[in-house]
């Protein structure tokens, strides 16, 4: 099985102005990923931009690996222009995944923005009743809503500008949920992925209430497989690599150094 392979673009479908679904077809036999793992993808065919970009996988089928990406900067703008039939280099699956919840725990999934993509593969594998709290800037930024509704669990959506769902930030929604469901405080496992300020807030809530759980972090990456030490974050065990020891870390392990 290869973790460095070429893949053909089968589809690159715009979902809205800034998000695309990228369906790739590996040209070699590849390793099956676990929820929370990611891939490094070549975004262009020149040295500018130079580095591959990290992306969570959305789902796999027997012959495809699918990604959902948001156009943020130059690299992702080039990815949006990738044509059907072109071939890209990919490294992966990389990193650790999300550990599954214990048998008596209720999963509470907290997603901010594109964080939902990393969590989606986890949600699809959960067999027990779970809660999904999902926040985005506005209605246009909400991804995968139909799929999340189809999965039929407790879903609360919020937007910063109130253009859809509840108004406000997803950490406030988490506080409300915990206040309304006393039992969750002792029996839930949190799963979080999103922008750093949101993750920091979720860490704070988890610390106050003694909750357990995991969060997936993002950091700039050069290699993605543990060689450059570029993606390190501070943890209670010193600096650890997001691409290797992470991207999923126990919430309690993260040391928040800066204000975000």
């Amino acid at each position, binding site marked *: 099985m290869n*973790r*460095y392979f070429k893949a053909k673009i089968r589809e690159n479908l715009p979902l809205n102005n800034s998000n695309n679904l990228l369906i790739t077809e590996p040209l070699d036999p590849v390793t099956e990923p676990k929820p929370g793992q990611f891939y490094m993808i*070549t975004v262009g065919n020149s*040295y*500018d*931009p*130079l*580095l*591959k970009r990290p992306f969570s996988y959305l789902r796999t089928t027997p012959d495809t690996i699918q990604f959902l990406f948001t156009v943020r900067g130059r690299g992702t703008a080039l990815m949006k222009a990738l044509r059907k039939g072109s071939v890209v*280099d990919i*490294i992966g699956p990389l990193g650790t995944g999300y550990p599954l919840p214990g048998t008596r725990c209720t999963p509470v999934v907290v997603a901010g923005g594109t964080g939902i993509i990393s969590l989606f593969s986890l949600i699809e594998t959960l067999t027990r009743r779970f809660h999904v709290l999902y926040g985005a800037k506005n209605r246009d930024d909400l991804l995968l809503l139909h799929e999340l509704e189809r999965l039929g669990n407790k879903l609360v959506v919020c937007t910063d500008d109130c253009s859809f769902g509840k108004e406000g930030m997803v950490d406030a929604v988490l506080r409300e949920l915990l206040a309304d469901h006393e039992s969750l405080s002792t029996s839930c496992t949190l799963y979080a992925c999103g922008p750093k300020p949101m993750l920091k807030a979720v860490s704070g809530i988890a610390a106050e209430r003694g909750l357990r759980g995991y969060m997936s972090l993002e*950091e*700039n*990456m*050069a*290699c*993605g*497989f*543990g*060689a*450059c*030490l*570029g*993606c*390190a*974050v*501070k943890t209670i065990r*010193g*600096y650890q690599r997001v691409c290797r020891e992470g991207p999923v870390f126990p919430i309690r392990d993260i040391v928040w*150094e*800066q204000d975000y």
Partner: protein
Amino acid sequence: MDLTVHIGRLPLKNPVMTASGTFGYGEEYAEFVDLNLLGAVVVKGISLNPKEGNPSPRICETPCGMMNAIGLQNVGLKKFLKEKLPYLRQFDTRVVVNILGNTIQEYVRLAKALDGAGVDAIELNVSCPNVKKGGILFGTDLRALARLVTRVKQSVSSTVLITKLSPNVSSIPGFAKAAEDAGSDALSLINTIPAMAINIETWKPKLANVTGGLSGPAIRPVAVRMVWEASRAVSIPVIGVGGIMHADDAIEFMLAGASAIQIGTGNFLNPGATAQAVSGIVTYLERKGISNIREIIGRVDGTAPHNNTDD
């Protein structure tokens, strides 16, 4: 086809080495490259005690390059000898250990410990731009460099000594000569170039450390020039580093005067880059009808066989 080159007394089966800090301790790449195919593996810079490194963000991208401010995070000498070196020793490749100290005594202690442990060569890192003490100081002060190299050379018996020069000096031949005169068996250059990038939305530097070292194709012409200048100033072998992505780039460095080359940032884009460079070099030599790679070293003289059409 003879691909053998020499770093002082040390023969390498081919000129392709890895650049320190970009290849971990080898094991990170074992699934992507057969380490037996490489001339040498140069490991991440080792210090006496483990180092934590700098806060994040530690890397950012620049046009055709990247900047890093890792801060020399490493496992330290003890753990390296116990856990990392035995792994590398399983392979039929040379092991070069890049070392870093704050004082001459620290370099000497590291060199002595490694000399006895059976590594093939020691590469003195006197050019890291990302630490405040030591490092770059030795690389940018002629007398400090000479003293350091002399002392380290006296403290090793069999291990080949490579001095990795800093590009952050006004005259590279002077530093090359100083290292040679002090007893260095070979030189490697260049290390990353001190650089800075700013996010215009937040008005903050892109790296937590504010400045970092630039690497990748963006620095290649600078590195080629420095290798050319240094190799003309000394008679010890020079190892070329900087922006080498594949065989063609490696050959450019050898024509400029390099006896061997190191691939750094190129490994991040293509973890199989080193092995592919070896096979690309073979293809090139075959195309040119050359049977011994040493024939191309320093041949920037316009006498290429089977003249290319693009001259």
